[in-house]
């Protein structure tokens, strides 16, 4: 339902005039508004004059903000007459703000999103499909691997965001502990049964208070990796769960067996774990392995050297299976909002951020490995690249070489699937439900809300 909405930017002079303080404060603010016209055509080609004002919003802390700002400065430097209103907040808060803006049809022109949420927005028609802009050449995707570009597609198959940085999940391994336990790293191309065997063997020789794995059954990311490696479908075409109850029962039985043998941390301890990946038990040297976002290796290593001086960690790919690699990609990229009134500039910015060599080098793959292969190679060739960052980017290259699966996440994935999954396994790990009951509970909860 796309309504051609024409929002007039009239001032409500009556109200504004009534407030004497309003004028006083307007002096120190220089107010702006994100009013915009709805695009006339459904698939704009993004061609036109690159000038005027756009708004760009992204998630991140101060260090990411500085890097993003540097790229925006390069963009405005190259395009005289363009001004950029910048908005940022930390991940969770960012989406609070975005949802208010989306609900009031005032999204910033350029919005950073991931595949995990994209369909929450495409379902509500607040984003523009980028296909027309790709066809017209306003946005170039020739240097980005197909598997990565496809991660930017919505459930309707149209491209909604252009991935600039690809995050992936890896298995983080504390190499110092693994060597102490005499197991080293799992062999290349290891599968899930090798992995559980590896964990069980290691546990026998680990020091008191350290477990071989974190509580893996409640980690949606591990499960996604398992489904991909075993050729299961995660979501069907309606956005409902695509795997069977037996699949999940089998998967949870595997983890719960490990938990009962003491190979994973206890349910109680898991409930106390901080959520940030760089503060996890893995980062504190209390767990030998855990799933870790590939780009969290650098901060997690930093924490580990403080918590357990002398220990080191690395990341390896997820276990494989009959259907190949289990490493799904989670790219982040910029989308263009449907209420944007400066589409040519927005398209030029999205293209610049993703494809410009200098911009990419300056951003330094801060939010996942650069998807543009030329940018990625340029970064890898840079001798100043830190060892952990280099490892992160090289692992990405390994994963992408194996043609990883692309997952289209239905609307409601982040708010429904992840929470329900963790909660249901928690019922199992606390012994309050049998695995069968928990699987039923999860299927009922997830299927009720997914895809809507």
């Amino acid at each position, binding site marked *: 339902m796309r309504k051609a909405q024409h929002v007039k930017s009239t001032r409500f002079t009556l109200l504004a005039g009534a407030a004497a303080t309003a004028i006083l404060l*307007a002096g120190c603010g220089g107010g702006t*508004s994100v009013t915009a016209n709805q695009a006339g055509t459904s698939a704009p080609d993004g061609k036109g004059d690159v000038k005027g004002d756009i708004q760009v919003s992204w998630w*991140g802390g*101060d260090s990411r903000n500085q890097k993003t700002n540097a790229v925006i400065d390069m963009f405005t430097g190259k395009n005289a007459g363009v001004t950029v209103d910048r908005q940022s907040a930390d991940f969770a808060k960012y989406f609070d703000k975005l949802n208010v803006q989306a609900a009031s049809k*005032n999204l910033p022109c350029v919005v950073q999103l991931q595949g995990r949420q994209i369909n929450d927005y495409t379902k509500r028609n607040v984003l523009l499909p980028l296909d027309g802009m790709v066809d017209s050449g306003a946005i170039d995707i020739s240097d980005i691997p197909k598997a990565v570009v496809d991660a930017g597609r919505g459930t309707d198959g149209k491209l909604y965001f252009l991935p600039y940085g690809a995050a992936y999940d890896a298995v983080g391994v504390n190499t110092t502990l693994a060597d102490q336990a005499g197991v080293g790293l799992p062999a290349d191309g290891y599968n899930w049964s090798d992995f559980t065997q590896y964990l069980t063997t290691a546990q026998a020789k680990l020091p008191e208070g350290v477990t071989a794995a974190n509580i893996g059954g409640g980690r949606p990311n591990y499960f996604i990796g398992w489904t991909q490696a075993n050729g299961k479908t995660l979501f069907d075409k309606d956005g409902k769960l695509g795997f069977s109850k037996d699949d999940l029962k089998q998967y949870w039985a595997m983890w719960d067996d490990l938990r009962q043998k003491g190979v994973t941390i206890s349910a109680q301890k898991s409930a106390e774990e901080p959520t940030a990946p760089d503060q996890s038990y893995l980062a504190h040297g209390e767990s030998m392995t855990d799933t870790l976002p590939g780009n969290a290796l*650098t901060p997690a290593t930093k924490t580990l050297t403080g918590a357990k001086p002398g220990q080191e960690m690395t990341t390896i790919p997820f276990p494989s299976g009959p259907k190949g690699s289990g490493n799904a990609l989670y790219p982040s990229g910029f989308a263009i909002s449907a209420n944007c009134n400066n589409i040519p500039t927005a398209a030029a910015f999205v293209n610049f951020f993703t494809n410009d060599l200098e911009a990419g080098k300056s951003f330094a793959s801060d939010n996942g490995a650069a998807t543009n292969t030329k940018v990625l190679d340029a970064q890898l060739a840079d001798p100043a690249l830190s060892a952990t960052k280099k490892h992160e980017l090289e692992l990405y290259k390994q994963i992408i070489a194996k043609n990883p699966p692309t997952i289209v996440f239905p609307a409601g994935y982040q708010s429904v699937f992840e929470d329900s999954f963790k909660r249901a396994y928690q019922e199992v790990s606390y012994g309050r439900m049998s695995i069968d009951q928990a699987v039923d509970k999860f299927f009922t909860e997830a299927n009720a809300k997914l895809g809507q």
Partner: protein
Amino acid sequence: MTTTTLPKAPLQIYPRRKTTNPVLAAVIRHALIICALVIMLYPVIWMVSASFRPENEIFNGLGLFSPNFTLDNYVNGWTSGSLNFSRYFLNSFLVTVLSIAGNLLACSVTAYAFARLSFPGKKFLFALLLGTMLLPSQVTLVPQYILFNKLEWINTYLPLVVPHWFGVDAFFIFLMVQFIRSLPRELDESARLDGCGHFRIFSRIIMPLAMPAIGTTAMFTFINTWNDFLGPLLYLNRTDLWTVPLGLNSFLDATGESSYGALFAMSVLSLAPIVGFFIVSQRLLLEGVATTGLK
């Protein structure tokens, strides 16, 4: 034990007579209160001590002391990267002071009208006012955003401050109405006999007597505005307009590197004005709590 002073006394745990030694009683009482205080304040104490530890030792447990005492978190946090806390504190103060001024003026005038004047529809309007307290703020969030956006007030402090000048905080109006109602009407009447109009009665009689309610309103407005995160998050995009909570949030990055040391250091500093304001207005506040029944 071979001696019992009272042969017929049944088994008793508590001494029969109250101890007469006032020092002992005071010591025991204070020891208990201090224990309770330490338990309640421990998270804050922990935060203060964490702010003096090196970055990678912060989450090393519940202990307070580290051999590596450092002030780096404060030095680096104050102007870290593109952040500038001198600016954020100034902005926060500006928003807070203007909000308090607006709230005090608008709420007290409205409360006076409801408590002392009689006009048609008063009961209905008062019920309406109380009704707005039942409305969750989330409900009005989006319409408010649309309104302020159309007024082109994004990137100004207007959306954060102007509503306070129109008496939108029904709770504080209610608080003051209840307080003013408890003041004897005879005072108004004698002032009226002496020739005072409403303005004089309001400013010379009611306001000085309502100081506890005013102090309570000021204090709570201060805390609410100082800690407000969602409002500034929605309306302030430019970093030079940011308030302290937005600055604190940008130390965190769930998808990259967080600087917890600087976060804790600046959090400690951001608490200082609240503690200071509380100490200054403590007497008024306690009186306010006692006389208005607010908890």
